[in-house]
């Protein structure tokens, strides 16, 4: 519009203004041309590349995305069409849930006709079990090796995850995305049905619906190569590209008696019982890890234990301290626990291994069969009656059994402690031999897997405090653990009956329920427990770690009347001790008529760094520690569009060249103005 002027422009300016007019119009119209062609798919989750000492695992796309003709994989004949008989390879496979298994994926991997896979994530058609993890989790970084219990190593005695298909540890040369949003999947299906369906057995004609997936990963080969290349980039390149980042986050720990955080190394006169569980999970796809039975069952049980123990340990404190720890990164070769043990060995932690009396770990405890809970111990270093659970179990609706004498420990953080010192300890689990969890470390290990169901007529607020069966079951386990820990710490048995876990722990204290609700619904859907890359890259601390830290502060801390600035600098206040406590400025409980005044809470809850010691020691090929970095990438997106043959594109190009030539040769006729212009030559 800004080039429309009052009258005919003088000749010298006419062509210039016409050019500017066209280019201005083009600038306005070009974005909508792209929108007319491409439909961006926003609700997708990629599979990314991870490395270890010798291999790369995960998925990779080409640097400018992988494009393929859409085909929905619903039946076996579709599979043949994609892999051998379809006339328009490469295909972009939209995979129904039932087909996402090892055999189909390996056939896709070996075929050159597959450009990528988009998996529809839904419960319809879901197989009875699906675990993309390996059958023997963390087999090389546990305690059993050629030199310690060699006949127990590598799951010779018990295969812990027999349903595991190992897909998460395969290397795919094409992108694999997950489609989580039903509406978006409908859009894709509609595009497929409109254009790509076979009619009476004959192939569909162009234009066809195609999809393009971008997930180009920077890292390649293995950890040593990736870290070396990152190092070379940082030293010699003007614009360094980082290729991969170590997985890193924080462990959360607390103790019944506060420990002096600034005194590292051996703590005098402290004998500590460690109660531990894991804080993370994983699945085939990036940052997706609902991990209900695998992780949440343990976290909630330990939180309930802490809540159950806090009144008794104030009134009748046991002689030994109880140290509660939530280890992050255990899915990836025990990142958090190996780091804590490493720090303890080097006297870089508040306690060291000489302070540790024994250890009780909570494994997967959500899917108990009947009343039984199993205590796993290490046959090689087994000591009699390492933890007394019988008196703890008295009066509860549980029986605690021991598996057969020669069975090794399941994959657990306790194994990392055993690698260094023969500490007595137990791992509590709901399984005797293999896991009860049929969806271990997968997208489908969610609340439904734990049988968390509500009566249909409850509002979300009522659901928040409803005691489900799962909650009651976990509360029983928590009561057992709390009582066992109290006895183990030397407490008197007469106080045991006062220790009971509250099933409402599932959504915790009313004061915290708003915080929980905020975190729960802040992301879309339930919290995901993938470890992530830590504060350097991801901004502040991972949401789940923060969540557990603040809940612990709420459960075990005390309210102080410090102001905000005092809360942030408590060393200035005489009565407060920054070495023993950490201070949190939190908003108060919300109620109907006030929004909650903020206040300062002090608690002995701390975070400790969870990054594999191999990255600090710079031993990137180390077999002793986790060396799993995650690749970096530039952009990850997906889009669908109608695809025309190359011939049409070439024809359009030639036609436009012809038209341009024709117009330019007749330019004097087409563009001359009414006035005669003097012929000027330059």
């Amino acid at each position, binding site marked *: 519009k800004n080039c429309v002027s009052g009258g005919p422009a003088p000749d010298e300016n006419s062509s210039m203004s016409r050019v500017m007019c066209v280019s201005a119009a083009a600038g306005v119209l070009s974005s909508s041309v792209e929108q007319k062609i491409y439909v961006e798919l926003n609700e997708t989750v990629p599979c990314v590349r991870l490395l270890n000492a010798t291999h790369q695992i995960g998925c*990779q796309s080409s*640097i400018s995305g992988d494009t393929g003709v859409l085909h929905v994989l619903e039946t076996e004949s579709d599979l043949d069409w994609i892999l051998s008989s379809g006339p328009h390879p490469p295909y972009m496979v939209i995979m129904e849930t039932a087909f996402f298994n090892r055999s189909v994926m390996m056939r896709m991997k070996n075929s050159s006709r597959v450009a990528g896979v988009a998996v529809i994530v839904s419960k319809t058609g879901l197989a009875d079990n699906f675990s993309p993890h390996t059958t023997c989790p963390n087999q090389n970084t546990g305690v059993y090796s050629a030199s310690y219990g060699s006949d127990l190593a590598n799951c010779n005695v018990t295969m812990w995850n027999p349903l595991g298909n190992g897909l998460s540890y395969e290397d795919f040369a094409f992108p694999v995305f997950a489609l989580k949003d039903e509406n978006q999947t409908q859009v894709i299906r509609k595009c497929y049905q409109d254009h790509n369906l076979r009619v009476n057995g004959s192939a569909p004609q162009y234009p066809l619906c195609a999809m393009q997936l971008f997930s*180009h*990963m*920077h*890292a*390649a*080969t293995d950890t040593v*190569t990736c870290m*070396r*290349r990152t190092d*070379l980039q940082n030293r010699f390149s003007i614009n360094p*590209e980082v*290729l991969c980042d170590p997985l890193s986050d924080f462990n959360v720990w607390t103790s019944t008696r506060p420990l002096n955080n600034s005194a590292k190394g051996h703590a005098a006169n402290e004998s500590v019982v460690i109660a531990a569980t894991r804080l993370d999970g994983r699945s085939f796809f990036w940052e997706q890890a609902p991990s209900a039975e695998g992780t949440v069952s343990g976290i909630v049980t330990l939180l309930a234990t802490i809540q159950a123990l806090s009144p008794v340990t104030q009134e009748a404190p046991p002689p030994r301290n109880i140290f509660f720890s939530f280890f992050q990164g255990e899915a990836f070769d025990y990142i958090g626990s190996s780091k804590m043990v490493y720090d303890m060995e080097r006297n870089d932690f508040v306690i060291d291994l000489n302070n540790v009396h024994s250890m009780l770990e909570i494994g997967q405890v959500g899917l108990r069969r009947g009343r039984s809970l199993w205590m796993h111990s290490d046959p090689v270093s087994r000591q009699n009656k390492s933890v007394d659970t019988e008196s703890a179990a008295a009066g509860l609706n549980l029986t605690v059994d021991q598996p057969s004498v020669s069975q090794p420990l399941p994959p657990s953080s306790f194994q990392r402690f055993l690698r260094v010192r023969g500490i007595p300890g137990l791992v509590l689990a709901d399984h005797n031999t293999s896991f009860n969890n049929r969806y271990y470390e997968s997208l489908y290990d969610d609340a439904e897997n734990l049988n968390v169901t509500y009566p249909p007529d409850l509002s979300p607020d009522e659901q928040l405090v409803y005691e489900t069966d799962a909650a009651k079951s976990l509360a029983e386990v928590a009561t057992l653990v709390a009582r066992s820990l109290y006895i183990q710490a030397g407490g008197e048995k007469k106080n045991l009956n006062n220790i009971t876990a509250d099933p409402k722990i599932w959504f915790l204290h009313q004061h915290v329920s708003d915080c929980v609700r905020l975190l729960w619904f802040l992301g879309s859907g339930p919290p995901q427990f993938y470890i992530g890359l830590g504060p350097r890259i991801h901004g502040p601390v991972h949401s789940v770690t923060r969540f557990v830290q603040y809940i612990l502060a709420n459960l075990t801390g005390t309210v102080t009347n410090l102001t905000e600035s005092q809360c942030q600098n408590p060393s200035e206040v005489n009565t407060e001790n920054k070495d023993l406590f950490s201070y949190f400025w939190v908003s108060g409980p919300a109620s109907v008529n006030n929004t909650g005044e903020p206040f300062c809470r002090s608690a002995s809850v701390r975070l400790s760094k969870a990054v594999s010691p191999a990255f600090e020691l710079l031993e990137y090929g180390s077999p002793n520690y986790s060396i799993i970095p995650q*690749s970096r990438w530039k952009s990850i997106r997906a889009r669908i569009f109608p695809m025309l043959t190359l011939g049409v594109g070439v024809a359009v190009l030639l036609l436009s060249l012809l038209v341009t030539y024709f117009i330019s040769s007749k330019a004097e006729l087409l563009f001359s103005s009414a006035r005669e212009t003097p012929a000027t030559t330059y």
Partner: protein
Amino acid sequence: MNLERMPNEEKLSLCRRYYLGGFAFLPFLWLVNVLWFFKEAFLKPAYTEQPQIKSYIKKSAMGLILWVAVLTTWITIFQHFRARWGEVGDYLSFTIPLGTA
């Protein structure tokens, strides 16, 4: 520069300068030499300086062919084996492609 208008002695000295310059690891000078003076050396009627220009052109051409052979061989080997050389390959590379071995 138009060779048509240059006297023959200047042509000879230009040709010689390009020939000598190419020894400083500059094979493109030899390439330019060959292409530029080819007509002068082989297609024009004879003149006094022509035999010397011819010899410079021939030597430049031989040097050029040698360089092309060596560079082609090295580039082929490097592109093929860089991934297999691991650490040595990375230290020899100026730009390492992302995401592939």
